[in-house]
């Protein structure tokens, strides 16, 4: 599942970063507390969060995440988009809630496995 797939599954829109990145999701983390995100020891994390701030992007960069999704169609500031572009983190805006997104991504993983 690439960031382009994530955009489709979550009815999202790519707001910053490279939408054609070949990196695939290695793990999903749904979290708004950045200190907690830093605890996850996984590669290619897809971060689902409601924290629409630069810190979400900076944290994603620190843990080497492959992308960030911001939920509930929260407005994203110009600086957040800039930080995402500067640090090369694909940033997706989705109208879904985090819970909804978790369930949909999981269904898509299952479908991927079956295929």
């Amino acid at each position, binding site marked *: 599942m690439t960031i382009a797939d994530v955009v489709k599954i979550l009815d999202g829109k790519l707001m910053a970063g490279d939408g054609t990145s070949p990196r695939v999701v290695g793990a*999903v*983390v*749904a*979290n*708004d*507390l950045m200190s*907690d995100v830093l605890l*996850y020891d996984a590669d290619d994390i897809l971060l*689902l969060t*409601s*924290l629409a701030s630069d810190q979400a992007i900076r944290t994603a960069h620190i843990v080497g995440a492959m992308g960030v999704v911001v939920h*509930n169609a929260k407005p994203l500031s110009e600086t957040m988009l800039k930080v995402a572009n500067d640090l090369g983190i694909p940033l997706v805006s989705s109208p*879904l*809630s*985090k*819970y*909804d997104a*978790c*369930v949909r991504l*999981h269904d898509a993983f299952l479908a991927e496995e079956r295929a």
Partner: protein
Amino acid sequence: MTAEEICEKVGGEMAVAAEGAAAGSVYVGDLLSDVMGHAGEDCALVTIQNHLNTIAVCTLVGCAVVVICHSRPVPPDMADGARREGVAIVVTPMSQYEAALALSALPPSKH
């Protein structure tokens, strides 16, 4: 879904039981301002915020079941608050993502 059923689904422990506590939908959120803005009535709140303020927010949005992830400890003032307000607290070792999947029989919370 009753608090007891939720507790079982997430493989958790009932830190604070509340009579009749149940949920018909789910919201996942750690930012209390976000929860306040988006979580609907009757939802189970999946969060990492082991803090008294979480209970305050629950009473505001009308949520009767809180699921605390990553086995974070429930501080005494939070437990007291939950008892007073009739909010059940379930503590699970799962992450928010895993807990969400475990509860996926329930619909997303509508605000």
